[in-house]
């Protein structure tokens, strides 16, 4: 059972990491849309670069949610009802963003285009902050009761304490870190997918924001240690884990160095690694807790949340088949739409 729990914990972490890396670049590109796309043609290019892939990227969120649901029903129930208000707002942002993205090019009118540009870009930007704040909440700990439930107001006194809100200084800091991280990731993606002025502007953005991200990452690491000194326990037990934060900084430097050297694909890969490693670093610290309570005895752990028996066995069988097929689709999809986007080849987004 310990191994089964570890396996599912790893599966869900990997799926979540894939989601963050994939949807991360289209959210980041979306948040940059208003600032980097100076002309209508440039904005159409940004939309076209993510148009065919964003929906597939977002499916990773749904698939991860589904797996989480049947493997850890208690976690699904506690966290979704506890984060009720912010989750609903995330849903609204996901809707607005998708509508702005899809219908900007459906209606050939610059007034509507400007309206959808703002909806799409502001929606993406707020979504990045919300995701960061959510991660911050989990690392900080939640006011879980003996029944494993909680309810968080949006904010209380902005302090990390016994009665936290969704937003306090720590979770807002996490929101800013994730926003800047996704902006860098989105900029790296646009460097790969565009040419001309837009390409140069995206590259400059990445070069300017990567050092900012380095500072923010250090600040948030210090803040995490300050509010939660015990978080390094797993690292001290199994010291090999310290390689993760080390690699986080290596990948950050990698973004900068490769972007300088105009090795745009490698810079993008480093950005993806940074996001994945940040997530790995967090789950490494949490394991085997999956939803930390402020009072540790009420924390949800793998052991007290996992469903049992046959559900997990049969789930593993179809999951392996399903995920191999899904990865196949993604390889095919990204190959079909590889290379720089141009507005000339017609067909859909941006035309």
């Amino acid at each position, binding site marked *: 059972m310990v191994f089964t729990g570890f396996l599912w914990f790893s599966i869900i972490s990997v799926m979540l990491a894939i989601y963050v890396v994939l949807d991360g670049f289209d959210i980041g590109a979306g948040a940059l849309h208003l600032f980097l796309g100076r002309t209508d043609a440039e904005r159409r290019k940004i939309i076209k670069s993510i148009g065919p892939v964003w929906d597939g990227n*977002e499916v990773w969120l749904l698939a991860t949610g589904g797996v989480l649901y049947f493997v850890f029903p208690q976690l699904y*129930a506690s966290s979704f009802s506890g984060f009720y208000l912010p989750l609903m707002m995330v849903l609204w942002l996901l809707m607005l963003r998708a509508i702005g993205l899809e219908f900007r090019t459906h209606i050939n009118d610059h007034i509507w285009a400007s309206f959808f540009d703002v909806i799409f870009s502001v929606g993406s930007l707020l979504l990045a902050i919300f995701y960061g704040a959510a991660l911050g909440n989990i690392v900080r700990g939640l006011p879980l009761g003996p029944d494993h439930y909680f309810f968080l107001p949006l904010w209380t006194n902005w302090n990390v304490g016994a009665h936290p809100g969704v937003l306090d200084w720590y979770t807002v800091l996490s929101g800013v870190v994730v926003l800047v991280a996704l902006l860098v990731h989105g900029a790296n993606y646009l460097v790969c997918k565009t040419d001309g002025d837009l390409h140069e502007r995206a590259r400059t953005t990445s070069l300017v924001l990567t050092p900012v991200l380095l500072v923010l990452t250090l600040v948030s690491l210090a803040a995490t240690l300050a509010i939660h000194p015990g978080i390094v326990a797993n690292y001290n037990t199994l010291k090999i884990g310290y390689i993760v934060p080390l690699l986080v900084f290596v990948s950050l430097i990698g973004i900068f160095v490769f972007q300088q050297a105009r090795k745009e694909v490698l810079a993008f890969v480093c950005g993806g690694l940074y996001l994945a490693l940040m997530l790995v670093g967090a789950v490494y610290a949490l394991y085997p807790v999956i939803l930390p309570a402020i009072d540790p005895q009420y924390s949800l752990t793998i052991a007290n949340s996992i469903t049992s028996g046959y559900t997990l066995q049969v789930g593993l069988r179809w999951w392996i088949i399903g995920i191999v097929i899904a990865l196949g689709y*993604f390889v095919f999809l990204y190959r079909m739409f590889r290379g720089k986007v141009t507005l000339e080849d017609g067909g859909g987004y941006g035309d």
Partner: protein
Amino acid sequence: MDSAVLIHRLHFAFTATFHYLFPQLTMGLAPLVVALKTIGLWKNDERYNNAARFWAKIFGISFVFGVVTGIPMEFQFGTNWSHFSRFAGGVIGQTLAMEGTFAFFLESAFLGLFLYGEKRLSKLAHWGTGVAVFFGSWLSGYFIVATDAWMQHPVAYSVLPDGSVTLTSFWGLLLNPWAIWQYAHNMAGATVTGSFVMASIGAYYILSGRQKEQGAIALRVAVIGGIIACLLVIGPTGDGQGRNLVAYQPAALAAMEAHFDTRTADLVILGQPNPENKTIDNPLVIPKALSFLSTRDWNSQVRGLSSFPETEWPTNISLLYYAYHIMVGLGTIFMLITLVSGIQLWRNKLFESRWLLWIIMLSAPLPYIANTAGWMTAELGRQPYLVYGLMRTVSGFSKSVSAANAWFTLLGFLGMYTLLSILFLFVLQREIAQGPVEDAAHAAEVK
């Protein structure tokens, strides 16, 4: 009634009803678009390829709205129904996760290629992406229906020591007898929507005298599709659903028919149920027909609602009765419209029968009402249970989320979905106004 559970129910009912306006069109159009695409490929006929392109665009618009309104559905199991999720997650989480893994990945990967990759792919490969999208959307429907079917008729589970349920048979869950009939009935219903919308827009083109050739193509394919779908809705699938009710939810069936006392039963066509007096006001009935439909014997006794304890009665009998009767009534009207249209098509007179084209054009909203009423029948009939016989609705909602917080987000969704409705109609209207054929080509066609 405790107000929190009512608001959580309204929350789910509203978002689910609004959501399903879009997938019923995409699932219904999918086979018709594949049919157009296949004819285009088979006969190498560019007119059919144009039609396929146009209807794929309509499909794509509806698909986007289906995606964005669908994400809240999976989330709401956790946000608004956490005690239900805790209880049943080990079983229904399985089908929901499979929908994401097997259906959504397929759809999302191939829809982009189908809509925007025609120039990058060979003709056959492009046709293949269309088939993949069709398959993906229908597969997605199966996993959702299987999830609902488990709530209607729980099978293949056992209860764990902590009170929650776990799966005992994977195929038992997927091949739930309830799921099979419900799926067939639902997909036939979706195809009715797809056919009626396609026929309606086709009729509009012919009546307005523009894009006549494309209007005729749409009508021909949609009328044939509509006849098949209407027959399937009524014939094997509607009957199969009825027999499921007889076997597994007899109290729901009695309430749907407003049949209170156990006796030989008339089939009520019109009338208002009066649960206090256990009668129907202003009845218009076919004598003994319900007895015949239930058991194939005109004089058999049909079990009435009074023979069940009141704690097993559906909580809103009148609404359940109306939802069911609206569904059946509209289904009968659809059969009439499609059969008359089919006869006129066969006699080569459909495109000149302006009265019939008007009827077809104006009927597009009706299948949406029928499908919605059908789902209301299923879910109101399931009451007072969330999982039939296992968990009552009052035990399933999120106790940690107050009625006020649920109101807050319900109002938010009302506002958001009003905006989405306006946008959908606006975008759809623009596509219809532009039509399947470009203006230049259209001008050439007129000459």
